[in-house]
């Protein structure tokens, strides 16, 4: 591909492997010493694994360190994982977690600065400059998507429109009137917008040339569809709250793998069962260690995302190690309209409602561009009322409780007993009819 590709930080993004490894090791050694000293959880888990900070003499030694999981975060909710006093924390974000324990991320001033560096790199992977108008349709608020991309765009000097999600009519108005050139949103919302654009007859009349799409998995087919509908580049971006938010890795215009900003976030692929690290090219679970985060560092955090790593060589000039597009998860978490949904959250809510049988099913589907989440609850005799209004009240109550806990709209459906398949072993609670992952 002969297209010119800009790089935000040539010095750091095109480092030689040896220089990078030396930098990573220096950062890792400082990190383990600091967390051992400042975070009781890490001291305990290192001691349990029989490892001391001084045992880290090469990057390979990282495999001596114990893993960190989402259960560890839940057990230390809200601030038990922080390595600095609250005085130094300048931002707190959170995202849904299992059964009412959201994941909490803290940031110091330096963390925010570093985050703005990594999201700037992300945006420049799509050739964003100070001349651009960036429409940021990621949710602003507790989610890391909105503010994460915002600070990166501002860092570059682009004109950011902090429009957040929803209100499609207004999104289109802004796109036309403000001359948006870059869009940040989830892939499914981008598809939705592209259909609205076509319906309004705006194709070819917009200045949009690139979209930065993430917060949920999406297929090559969807990318092709978006790129065709809007005649833009659709860049895959990846991140997670526990590591920083958006800005962990990003496609460049080559689109042959997402560059992981590995001077800040050290990636590994492990076998999810044996926990052994796997070499480049082999598929397994993504694990990250945050090399410089101050407030909320994570050591070998198990993401549950399935991918593989590839060497950094890329026509764009960046030397960051690349990850393939995700092909699945090792747990049952779903991402619906960009929001993490744990089936256990749903179950915990349902069993609280008096009389509701434990027989329920979650159906995830995609109608056109938008994800739908439907929860089927069996109407047992306890729950059944002869009056329609009582059943409707129950439906509405469950839907309301779900929505306030899951943070997305759900559709409730009352079904007859035995409509939901019984099984010998573990009940089949979730049926996901979508295809959101590439097959490889």
């Amino acid at each position, binding site marked *: 591909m002969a297209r010119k590709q800009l790089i935000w930080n040539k010095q750091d993004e095109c480092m030689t492997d040896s220089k990078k490894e030396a930098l990573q090791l220096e950062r890792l050694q400082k990190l383990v010493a600091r967390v051992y000293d400042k975070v009781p959880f890490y001291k305990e888990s290192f001691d349990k694994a029989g490892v001391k900070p001084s045992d880290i003499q090469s990057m390979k030694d990282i495999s001596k360190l114990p893993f960190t999981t989402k259960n560890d975060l839940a057990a230390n909710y809200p601030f038990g994982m922080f390595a600095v006093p609250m005085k130094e924390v300048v931002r707190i974000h959170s995202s849904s977690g299992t059964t009412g324990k959201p994941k909490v991320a803290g940031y110091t001033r330096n963390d925010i600065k570093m985050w703005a560096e990594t999201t700037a790199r992300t945006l420049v992977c799509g050739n964003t400059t100070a001349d651009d108008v960036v429409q940021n349709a990621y949710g602003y608020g507790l989610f890391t998507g909105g503010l994460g991309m915002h600070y990166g765009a501002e860092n570059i000097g682009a004109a950011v429109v902090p429009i957040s999600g929803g209100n499609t009519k207004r999104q289109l108005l802004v796109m036309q009137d403000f001359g948006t050139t870059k869009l940040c949103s989830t892939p499914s919302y981008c598809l939705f917008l592209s259909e609205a654009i076509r319906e309004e007859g705006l194709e070819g009349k917009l200045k949009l040339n690139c979209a930065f799409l993430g917060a949920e998995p999406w297929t090559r087919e969807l990318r092709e569809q978006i790129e065709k509908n809007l005649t833009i580049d659709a860049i895959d971006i990846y991140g997670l709250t526990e590591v920083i938010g958006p800005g962990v890795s990003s496609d460049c215009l080559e689109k042959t793998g997402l560059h992981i900003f590995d001077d800040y976030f050290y990636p590994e692929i492990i076998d999810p069962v044996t926990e052994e690290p796997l070499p480049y090219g082999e598929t397994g679970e993504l694990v990250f260690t945050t090399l410089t985060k101050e407030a909320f560092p994570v050591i070998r955090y198990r993401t549950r995302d399935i991918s593989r790593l590839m060497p950094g060589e890329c026509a764009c000039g960046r030397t960051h190690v690349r990850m393939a597009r995700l092909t699945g998860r090792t747990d049952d978490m779903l991402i619906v309209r960009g929001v993490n949904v744990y089936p256990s959250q749903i179950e915990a809510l349902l069993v609280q409602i008096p009389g509701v049988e434990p027989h329920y099913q979650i159906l995830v589907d995609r109608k056109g561009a938008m994800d739908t989440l439907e929860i089927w609850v069996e109407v*047992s005799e306890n729950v*059944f009322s002869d009056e329609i209004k009582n059943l409707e009240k129950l439906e509405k109550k469950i839907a309301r409780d779900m929505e306030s806990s899951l943070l997305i709209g759900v559709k409730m459906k009352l079904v007859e007993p035995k409509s939901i398949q019984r099984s010998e072993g573990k009940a089949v609670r979730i049926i996901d009819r979508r295809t959101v992952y590439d097959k490889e």
Partner: protein
Amino acid sequence: MVRQISVFLENKFGRLSEATEAIGQAGVNIRALSVADTSDFGILRCIVSDTDKALKLLKEKGFTASATPVIAAEVPDVPGGLAKLLSIPRENDINVEYLYAFVEKSGDNAIVILRVEDIEGIKKLFEKGGVKVLSEAQVSSM
């Protein structure tokens, strides 16, 4: 006081037919029925010749079914018959949840089935107003 059978029906093809088939299989006759529907589900309400037998078989066939207390009032099968009956709850500020009616096979009367919160209360009011209230045995054997 009459026990009406209420059956929860998913808005799925054939459910109503299967439920009525189950009642028929039990050798039970349906006297009157009504179906309340929303876009997602429906409730079949019926008065049958043998309430216990029908309930048992419906439950065996996996339906969610229950017995709901309703009142059966006899009204003359003439224009204005129903309106005259309904003036009684209206004048006494009593809310009628739903009702449905059927005509008697023999005779000049119609039977109105009403669901009201205070069954005993409405029964007394009907009797005071000269309305004949039927028992389950009377309705089942019609």
